[in-house]
């Protein structure tokens, strides 16, 4: 009865009654999922405002932004942004977006809420650990935010925090004092949270599946969350020590990443014999898988939602899962493609470029599977569906530029230009965000019991879809013109003529950003005033739709679920429509 005993711990807790127990320190995976979602929402708003400020500065570098001086007197004397403050905002934008939005929402947020439901479990295997992982994440977020208010302001060495700039301390720049230390601490804490979360996801997926929910019957989203947590388990395990070593370099006088004889601000540094490349190796060994930690859940979510609105199963479901596994596996062999010009052995550049290009094969297969699946369908163009289609489009646009950057010979020209910015914003940022929107419009009825407003949703989609192309497409051309990224202003002779393009991008960014408030309003308004949602508003098949909206504390009211069907049986004659729920009795199989 080993499992019995093991499982006993999972289920014995009963619904909390106190407010704190229900909504703050809740062990209910649904509440925790919403908490992650809320944190992500807060983070994405901050991150977006930061990007507005940055874009304004890039378009009009001497522009006085009213009130900015209040935010940071030294950072914006007379409301004019200083370059160090621009870099600080850029660093915070990157860190917040990558860690607290792209990692938190599609993976931790939706994953926490729907993974247990989709496998038919009452909760995660370790509810208390689950609660802990959220609050640890939250702590990490607070520590990072604190950097805004310490003397010198936030760090300015980018989300990649390349040593020695990030390791030598305040001589390297205003933000490199306390701010950078807080950054290192925050990320280290974040890693711990992610590891705890990953343990939970893995054991839940493997051990808490209800009767009949064989691995072959898992929805794509569940697969994606499972694979992602495996990637995260190994990736964050490397970032954690890296951050600790960086922290030691900063406060304990070690020299892991700091070579000898540095003279910074006319001060000779005491450190000796470290290696800046060591940081890059450790960081990118995490950093590249992190890209897939952000995008795989998005892939899973989109693949999960598309069939619902196409009313037909996806092509080659097993192939798709295989692609996700392959991408996850390959992601550990390609970190060097971030370091083509870093001064590492030129031979290794070739070794790293080949697997990088190979990754494009599973990615292409996945894309073609989606496109091919759209063929011959009769689609219901809900907002969720539109965002899925938008995801496919931006995923293509972002993936294509990968062909260029994967080749060292071309990367030598395009490295650290806006071409790269366009690439990762499309494929990692926008794509993942689109999946979040799709997920929100699709699942919000289940999570809140209220339908979201479709009209507002569609307005939001069109503005966003056209907007992101206006923002990021031009960046490719800027990149080809050699426009260097991470510049606070464009003073060079060859860059100043490009400023009008930047002004265009800025305007597009402001409009697109403003459009997001339509979404925010829709979210809040629908939560309060939206029409009540039925249990299965989209006639979908997976388990989350065979319970009430929102689900009860233990998800299924203690019913024994028996899964008899594949997750995507659409376009068939089912008992109550053109679909068959996974939980429908065996007999329901029409053909």
């Amino acid at each position, binding site marked *: 009865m080993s499992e019995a005993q093991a499982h006993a711990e999972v289920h014995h807790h009963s619904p909390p009654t106190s407010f704190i127990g229900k909504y703050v320190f809740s062990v209910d995976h649904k509440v925790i999922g919403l908490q992650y979602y809320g944190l992500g929402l807060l983070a994405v708003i901050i991150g977006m405002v930061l990007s507005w400020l940055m874009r304004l500065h890039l378009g009009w570098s001497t522009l006085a932004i009213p009130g900015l001086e209040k935010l940071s007197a030294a950072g914006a004397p007379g409301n004019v942004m200083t370059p160090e403050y621009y870099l600080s905002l850029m660093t915070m934008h990157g860190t917040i977006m990558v860690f607290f939005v792209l990692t938190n929402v599609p993976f931790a947020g939706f994953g926490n809420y729907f993974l247990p439901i989709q496998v038919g479990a009452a909760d995660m295997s370790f509810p208390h650990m689950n609660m802990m992982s959220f609050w640890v994440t939250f702590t990490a977020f607070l520590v990072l935010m604190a950097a805004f208010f310490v003397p010198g302001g936030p760090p300015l060495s980018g989300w990649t925090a390349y040593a020695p700039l990030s390791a030598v301390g305040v001589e390297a720049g205003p933000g490199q004092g306390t701010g950078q230390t807080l950054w290192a601490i925050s990320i280290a804490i974040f890693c711990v949270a992610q590891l705890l979360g990953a343990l939970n996801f893995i054991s839940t997926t493997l051990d808490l599946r209800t009767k009949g929910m064989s691995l072959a019957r898992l929805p794509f989203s569940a697969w994606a969350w499972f694979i992602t947590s495996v990637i995260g388990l190994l990736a964050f395990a490397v970032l954690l020590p890296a951050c600790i070593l960086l922290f030691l370099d900063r406060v304990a006088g070690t020299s892991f990443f700091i070579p000898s004889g540095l003279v910074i601000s006319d*001060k000779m540094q005491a450190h000796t014999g470290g290696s800046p490349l060591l940081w890059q190796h450790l960081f990118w060994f995490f950093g590249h898988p992190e890209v897939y930690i952000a995008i795989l859940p998005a892939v899973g979510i989109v693949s999960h939602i598309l069939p619902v609105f196409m009313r037909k199963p996806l092509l080659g479901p097993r192939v798709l899962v295989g692609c996700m596994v392959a991408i996850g596996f390959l992601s550990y062999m390609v970190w060097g493609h971030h370091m083509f010009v870093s001064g590492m052995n030129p031979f290794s550049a070739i070794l790293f470029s080949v697997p990088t290009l190979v990754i494009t094969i599973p990615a292409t297969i996945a894309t073609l599977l989606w496109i091919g699946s759209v063929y011959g369908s009769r689609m219901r163009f809900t907002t969720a569906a539109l965002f899925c289609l938008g995801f496919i489009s931006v995923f293509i646009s972002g993936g294509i530029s990968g062909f260029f950057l994967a080749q060292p010979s071309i990367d030598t020209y395009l490295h650290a230009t806006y071409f790269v910015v366009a690439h990762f914003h499309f494929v990692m940022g926008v794509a993942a965000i689109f999946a979040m929107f799709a997920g929100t419009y699709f699942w919000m009825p289940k999570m809140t019991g209220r339908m979201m407003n479709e009209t507002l949703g569609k307005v939001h989609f069109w503005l966003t879809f056209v907007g992101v192309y206006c923002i990021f497409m031009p960046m490719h051309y800027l990149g080809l013109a050699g426009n260097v990224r991470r510049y606070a202003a464009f003073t060079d002779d060859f860059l100043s003529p490009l400023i009008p393009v930047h002004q265009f991008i800025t305007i597009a960014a402001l409009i697109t950003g403003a459009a997001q408030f339509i979404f925010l309003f829709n979210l809040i308004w629908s939560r309060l005033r939206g029409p009540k949602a039925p249990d299965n508003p989209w006639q979908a098949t997976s388990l989350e739709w065979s319970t009430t909206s929102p689900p009860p504390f233990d998800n299924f009211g203690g019913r024994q679920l028996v899964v008899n069907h594949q997750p995507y049986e659409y376009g068939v004659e089912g008992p109550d429509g053109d679909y068959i729920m996974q939980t429908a009795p065996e007999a329901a199989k029409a053909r």
Partner: protein
Amino acid sequence: MKMKLFVPTLVVLLVSAALATLAVAPPAGGTISGKVTYTGTPPKMKPIDMSKEPTCAKEHAASPVMTENVVTGPGNSVEWAVVYVSAGDQGSAPGTQTLKFDQKGCQYIPHVLAMQVNQPFEIINNDPFLHNIHPLPKINPEWNKSQPPGTPPQVEKYDKPEFIPVKCNVHPWMHGYFVVLNTSHYSLTGSDGSFKIAGLPPGKYTLTAWQEQFGTQTQEVTVGAGETKSIGFVFKALPY
């Protein structure tokens, strides 16, 4: 409430009175004047290549700016040296008027800014692009601020005497000095190396001459009322 105000007011009155008397006390104070010179070969003044900042490069195209760590003139005179009363000072009026430290054409004007403790000074950016000003004090608090073009002057002061190297992080060749003194009796040598400290009450003084590269020298001087003493400081210079 009233008492609260009364005490500080009184203190202020007394102090200012005292200072006033000290300042105006010697009607015909003594004067020390002279020249700062060098022997040997001083390091060559090198032309500064400002091509990184085209505006400045254009501005100085005709006559390139020279390095200012050792500026010498005819008769072995040494410019930018500070001569000041380092001991025996019988009291100084606080430096009140605001000094100016100008960033113009990628140069610090003046190269050396001598001031008294707690004397306010303005840092002005007169260039159409950003400057970053980063003084590197050892005992005074360190700060590092950027000045985008067209931002208001930034007013600072130091409360401990110190020789503070100043650099612009953005334009590595821009170097200057803040010389913070706790006396009002000081003089900065001009292009002819001459200095003049007037209004000294009769007495025995220790005079110190400081130059960023050569270091310091001291001399004992006694001046009587209305007397003018002439002394010279000679630094030993090496080519490298």
